[in-house]
Each structure stands twice: as structure tokens, then as C-alpha cells.
């Protein structure tokens, strides 16, 4: 597979480590009500779609960026690649 890195262009997937669903960015608020349930769902339940899937890839043998790759689980076609940090910031994650 080839991942079109936003900064570095097309790179062989062999340079990456893949972790799974990009929903892992959305770590729940530990102080919110129902946090135990929220953490259980966060850590264990997955949509696992047949089709478009947003997932986390880490450029371990590259610039060490975590990326959010939007890829079809049916054809493997990659529709979009973003810097995970930007995605996290856009979701309002900070400190």
C-alpha cells in the first residue's frame, strides 16, 4: 500500500505502524458522568465499517507523525490523509 503523506508525499505503508479506528483520538472526559461506560465503549467497541474507514497510521520509519487515513475497507482505496494532530486540534483536544 501507498499512503500519501500530507507533508512527505506517497510513502510505502511498510514505513508505518497501523493502529486502527481513528475514533481512538476521542478519548472520553474521565470526569464526565458515565465515564466508565464511555471508556469501555472507547476502548472496546468499533463500527468496523465495510467501506470508508478513518484509521490511525503512525509514520514510525519516517517523520513520526500520526496520520488519519480515510480508506475503503472494501477496495483499499485511500480517499484522504490528514495529520492526526490537526484532526485532534480540530476536535478541540488540547491539554
Amino acid at each position, binding site marked *: 500500500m501507498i499512503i500519501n503523506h500530507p507533508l512527505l508525499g506517497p510513502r510505502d505503508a511498510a514505513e508505518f*505502524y497501523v493502529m486502527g479506528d481513528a475514533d481512538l483520538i476521542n*478519548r472520553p472526559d474521565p470526569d464526565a458522568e458515565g465515564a466508565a461506560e464511555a471508556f469501555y465503549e472507547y476502548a472496546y467497541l468499533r463500527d468496523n465499517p465495510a467501506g470508508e474507514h478513518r484509521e490511525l497510521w503512525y509514520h514510525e520509519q519516517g517523520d513520526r507523525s500520526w496520520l488519519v487515513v480515510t480508506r475503503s475497507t472494501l477496495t*483499499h482505496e485511500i480517499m484522504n490523509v490528514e495529520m492526526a494532530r490537526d484532526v485532534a486540534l480540530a476536535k478541540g483536544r488540547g*491539554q
Partner: protein
Amino acid sequence: MTQSNRIAGGLVDRSKQLSFTFNNKSMTGYEGDTLASALLANGQRLVGRSFKYHRPRGIFSAGSEEPNAMVHLRRGAAQEPNTRATVAELFNGLEATSQNHRGSLEFDLMSVTDLASPFLSAGFYYKTFMWPKKFWEKLYEPAIRASAGLGRLSMQEDPDSYDKGFLHCDMLIIGAGPAGLMAALTAGRAGARVILADEDHLMGGRLNAETLSVDDQEGSAWAAAAAAELDAMPNVRLMTRTSVYGAYDHGVYGALERMTDHVPTSGGKPRQVLWRIYTKRAILTAGATERSIAFPMNDRPGVMLAGSVRTYVNRYGVAPGKKVAVFTNNDDGWRTATDLHAAGVSIAAVIDSREITPLAAIPGALILMGASVASTSGYLGLKSIATSSGVKIETDCLAVSGGWSPNVHLTCHQRGRPTWRDDIGAFVPGGDLPIGMHVAGAGNGSLALASSLKEGANVSASVASDLGFAATAAFPSAEDQSTDITPFWHVEGKGRAWIDLQNDVTVKDVKQSQAEGFRSVEHLKRYTTLGMATDQGKTSNVLGLAIMAEATGKSIPETGTTIFRPPYSPVPIGALAGRARGKDFRPFRLTPSHKWAETHGADFVEAGAWLRAQWFRKGSEKGWRDSVDREVEATRGSVGICDVTTLGKIDIQGRDAAAFLNKVYANGFAKLAVGKVRYGLMMREDGIVMDDGTTARLRENHFIMTTTTANAGPVFRHMEFARQCLWPGMDVHLISTTDGWAQFAVAGPNARNLLSKIVDMDISNEAFPFMACAETTVCGGTPARLFRISFSGELAFEIAVPARYGDAMMTKLMEAGEEFDATPYGTEALGVMRIEKGHAAGNELTGQTTANNLGLGKMVSKKKDSIGNKLSERPEMNREDDLRLVGFKPVDTSKPLAAGAHFVDNGKEAVTKNDLGWMTSVAYSPELGHSIGLGFLKKGDQRKGDKLRAVDLLRGGEVKVEVVSPHMIDPEGERLRA
């Protein structure tokens, strides 16, 4: 043997005669021959035996689709099984032997199975061999296994080496036949970066096998000229002897280049190179493969594909028979008759299943239209055939053409489905090609020459234009030979009619499969084994499908399609492994004191990628225990030195570094003072312990974290995730410094005395207490870092210098320590001392362990949010009766303990329901004078002093053990604070 079947013409070099042997018989051939063409030239028709019935078989084709002519090539360790004689280039001294027979090739004892064939129909083995039950493994299966299989491995290490590589291009063109050459010329002239690959050593594909002309030249001459033009282009890479075997995601193709298979020895260079080709686009110009017709007893040596028969005549100057008959359902089959006749080979008959006007008059040949072949004779080689109407014809070679199937294989590698074209009676590539792949030429169903050339040029021009190259398609002149076909699949009659020659699947098997309900194509394949042989059904799949369609009364497309999976043609496992074997399987990481250790008696042990000194053998020490006991005693008695560079070191800096550590460690770090070190417990988000280690605060915003050796990579990745994805607003930066610093543990009562001689600072207990750290220098100026931490439980320091000074540092430490009898120690002594101290390591941190299991539950801070904190609160992870890490000693202290033994209460049976836990680590403690262990025990924290059984059923041992504190030596920690 003389080359009795060699005739004039062809592209072989008659000035270069080569000698070779087949089954130890000496023969000769010419440069440019394949083993198959040379065997045919020498009149060798019988070359092998079939898989199931051990039927005598000859050469069937002239390419990689060959199902029959498989041989052992070369001898000794280099013996290569299942090599297709049709693609093995002849070299001087080649040795080939036939395979899959007991006794000689001519009198195979296993051919008795052929007589039993009525009882060995499709799936027979699912219905018998069940009684008595024990006989399967003992009797039936060994017999089946011995008779099955094909070639034999030498059972010795492959003597050749292999390599791999990466190539990049705008356009990969797969197959250098007419369409491929035109595609390459078009794109190459336009300036695109092109790779043109072909499995043959000669570019041109069918142009080298036909008598068709291009631009008024012989096809083969035109091909040679085209190849020469391409070779001169700097933007084109021509790759002969290269099979593109697989189409993978995003335009990555796998290709195998055979570098030395055509020469007697590889001369120390890689035999084959496995390329990964990164393409922007690919054009598949892989041509087509001819298929047979199923008629009774159609498997005899001498029954061949018609196109291949003329390949042997036109390209190799070899007549596969003295008197050749042709059986065809299409116009192309007639070319075999006319070409052979023109070459002076006698044609016995042309039998065409169609009721049409004969396409040619061939002097001396019987022309039978609307006819078919209904039987054959000649056990070890074809002698005669008889038609359905009873005409008997003497012939030693029957050229059969059932039509051509485009080589759609690579279009299916991403599960694309081919579609059926009635007009050519074949599957062609469907619409769902791998992204970036295009198809042209015969492989796309454009079987005739002129259209193939034209399509190659047109498709290439359009692809090149898409990529931004100004390409124009120009075509040479050529004829479009007629390829009309009226599908005709099999001839009814007495006797077996083979579909899959190698696996011995016949028309009857397909019909039985239908009758038993195995009607889906996949069931058919699986039940009959059709298409599962080494040729992957290249010549048989369509035929089998057509016969299933007839049996079910459906059309071929309704019956289904089979798709192909990589590889297109089989790839040696050695080539796929490349260099990665033996010691080169994976890289080694060496510690900075490796060289020193090598010269000081070290035995090394693999610790992940690292090689570490396990112990240092000294003098007359016989067993490893002698060395390890000595190292432990010396360390606890005076001072020991251990290279601990392998522990992961991560440099953490930033305004929010402390806050960040508070998130990734379960225990608090925000208040760690500058110049201090703290033990940290790291959890995964699921509340399971991930790693542990110490982290030092060098400056306000600067920390050095250490990880376990095994988890250095995963912890770094985990923290990058936390930094970038969870808390992107934190100012924190990570970089690994593992390799950068040579780090040594200096441990034992004399550790301070030793280090004081080297370190350029005051390291008294007052100035530098337990858990202190500092940036300093050694030896009057070499930069260093010093940490007062202890894994051994002794007064200990870890001293780090830049790695290039590591070897010198080790020497210096030993020199300075001479007066204290300083002793280097390895991982084994390190392990003994950490077990004595009850420190968890890899055997305990299994990824299944909670902080509670380790007795460290109280370290998980409830006052702050950290990774894993929340999920560690789940009820099953906080059971009072859960496993706890405790120490063990044998009740009879002369007995050794065993890691992996399970704990059972006295009087209880050693069965799962009584299982109380297991021993994780054991060691002999020289200080205590007996074996000690650590282990997880249910309610272990409440069972101190209890006596249990430690049961090792696996090795037949059982030891009574007493539960003790895991801190077995100096439990109050007085030594390390001294």
C-alpha cells in the same frame, strides 16, 4: 542421442551446442533452447507422471502454463523440484530428472493406481479410509502422502542467495509481445519512465513463435528491432526473465527476475531478485493461453497444444512429431497445420469440429470437417487417433486447439471478475481492474496481430497522456489473422477425458461433482481439485467450467467464473525471503561494550534485536551457573558492572513535559524535583501494565525516561500518540537517545568507591543520595550522566557516556575497579538479583498484569487522570481473590524451582479448577543458598507462610513451596540507600 527431431529454422544458435542429461541420458541442444524444446529435439516424448493416476505424460505446451513436463532440475542441494521444462532455459551441463514415479519413468510401479481409477473418482477419499479409526494416521495417510506430491526437495539448505529491490516507474508494461512492445515504444518515445517486463529471455512473445510479419519483416525480427530501440532509451528499463507475479494495492507489483537460472552456477551472485515495482500506471499485455479439448484418452505424450507445436517448429526448429495431426475448433489451429507443412513437417490430418469449408488445402493431409477425436492409442507415447466417425489416423503428435484464453490473471488479483465474450469463447478482463491497471492486446481479447499492436499503442498513448506525456500512437503494418471459433468443449465417448492434466480431473469427475451437489464453481474446484495444480488451471479452468455449464444446463457466465490469486506463476520461497535468512534474518543491535565482552569470555543471548552478554565465563568455570553465581556474589560482595544500554531512553522536553508524564504514568510525576529520579508505572488505556522504568528530571523542562528493553519502541509510539492525538495542546517533545548513550550499572558496596575515581563530582550519599541524577563528566572531561538507581538492590549507580566512548568507558571502569575485584556481569546475574529483590520483569509484565497483580495497586493515583486509570477500576480487575505477585522458596531448600509450574493446594488434584497461579521466574540465590521464585498466586498477599504444591506436569516435577515476600533480600532497602 541425436537431435532426431531437429529441423531447419528457428531462433536457436546452432553454433553453440550445449550438452545436458535427462534421467542420466546425455543429450545435446542449442543455445536458445528450453529444456522442453531440447527434449523434443532428441525425441524424448515421455517426461513425467501425473499426480493421481501416475499416467505417462509428455510435453503439453511451450510456456509457463505447462501442466505435465515438470522435472527436477540440477542435483544435490541445488535440486529444484517441479520445474517446468518448457521455461527452463538450456545451459551446458544441465541435469534434469523426471519426478513422481517409483521405479523408472517408463515402468512406474505407482501406475497401478491408474487401474483402480474407477474407484478413485472425485472425492472418493471423503467416503472411505475411516475404519478402523486409528488406521488413518498409521496406514492410509502415509500411503496417500507418499504417492501424492510431485517433486522432491533435497532437504538441504538452498545453496543459492537471493536479493530484493525496489523499482519506480510511470508505466509498467507486463508482457513484451506485440501489444507490450507497442505500448513500451509509444510510452518510451513520449518520455515516460517505462519498465517493460517479460518472463521470456527473448522479447516478442508470440511474434517469436509465429510466421506473421510486421512492417514487412519477420515478426521476430521486428520484435528484436523494437527491443533494441527500447534498450537505447534511458527512460526505459527492459527486464527479461522477469515474471510480474502479483498486482497489489496502489500500483505496487511484485516481480521475479531470474538472474542466473540460465547458467550453470550463480557464481556467488543472487540467483534471483524479487522486485517491488511502484507504478503510476500499469498496462497488462500478457497475451493469451491456448486451451485443450477434452476427448477420451487425451492425455498421452504427444498430445499437445496446437500453438505450442508451432512454437517448437517456428522458434526452436524442432518438430514435436514426425507425422502431426491437428484437432481444432477454431481458425488459429489451422496455422499449426500450414506452418508445419511449410516447415516440411508431415501433416497427417486436420480435424475441425466445425462444419465449415476447410481453411487450407494441405497436401498429404486428411481434412475432416465437423469431426472430432474420439480415442487415442499408445501408452508411453501417442501412436494413433480415431475420430468419432471411426477414422483411424496414425500420428505421433496431435496438436489440439480449443481456443485461446486471455491471460486475465493479474486483473483478478484484487478480486476483479472477468467477463465472458461469446465471440471469442473466452473470459476477458472485467470492468473492475486494479486501480491504475489497463489491458491491451490478446490479453484483452484482441487476439489478432494487427489489432493487438494497435491496441497496445492506443492504450499506452492514452495512459501516457493522462500522466502528462505527449504521446502519439503509431502502428506498424501487420495482418489480422483470422481467429474465428465455434466453442466445442468435449467429445463424448468411452474412456476418460482429461480436463486438468496434472491433477487428473476428468469430464466424469465434473459430472459426478454436479450430481453430488457440488455445483458452485468453488465447490467444483474444491471437490474435484480442478485447477488446483501447479499450473493453477491455466489450461483447464475454462474447460472445466464449460463442462459444468453443460451438466447444469446453464451458460458459462451463469455457472460462474473463477478468479486468480497471486502469484501468476509460482515464486521460490527463497526469493520471497531474499537475504533474510540465517544470521541475516533480522539485524543485530550490539551494546557499546560488545567488543570488550567478546574478548572477556562473554556468552551472548538474544534480547529482542539486541545481543547482550549473558555471563562472562572465567577460568575453569564449567557450567553457566558457576559464572552467574560468581557474578552475583561479586556484585553483592564488592562491585559488579553491567552494560544496560539496551534499556530504552527517551528524551522528553517541553513546558508541559511534567504534565505529560503525569498523563502517561499511573503515578504522579508533576512534583518530581530537578535532579531526582522516580520509578514510573505505565499502563495501557485498558488498565493493564504496559511498562515500567525510571524517569529522571535533569532540568525543569527536561526529563530522561527509561523503558524496558523490549518496550522501548512501543512506549515511544504510545507517547507520540498521546502527544499528537490526545493532548496536542501540550508543549512536549520526544526523541530516542537509546543508541546515543552507553550506560553501565555499577552496583555493589564498592560502587561508590569505584566511581569516585572516575566521576568528576562528589557522589557521597549526602551530595548524591539514592534516586539522585546529574549531568556531569568523567575522567576529567568526557560528558556523562549519572543516576543513583538500583535494580540489583545494592548501592548502585548507572553511568552513561556518549556511545562512542562506551568501549573506553568499560575498560576504564574495569581498570578503576581492579582494586575492588570489579566483576562484569551479564543478564543472567542481573536476573538473579532482580528476582531476589522481587522486581517484575518480562516474565511478569506479560501484558495481562494489573497493578494490583503486581502489588502496586496503590501507585495508581486516583487524584489525576492518566492513561489506563479509568479502565483499571473495572470490577474483575479489582477482585480481592485475584492473582498477586509473591515470592517462593522450596520447603526442601535443596530442590530447584521451575518457572512455568502451576500452584495447587496440598491435597488438591492438578486440574484447571484447582489452578491457583504459576511460577513466573526462578533463580538460584547464592546469598540465600537455595532456589527462589516469583509467581502469581491467587490471594497471594494473604498467603505468606502457606505451603503449596508447585506442579510441573510437563517435565514431571513437583516441589513443595512456601509463599514468602517477593523482597527476598534486604527487604528494607538499606543497601541501596547506603
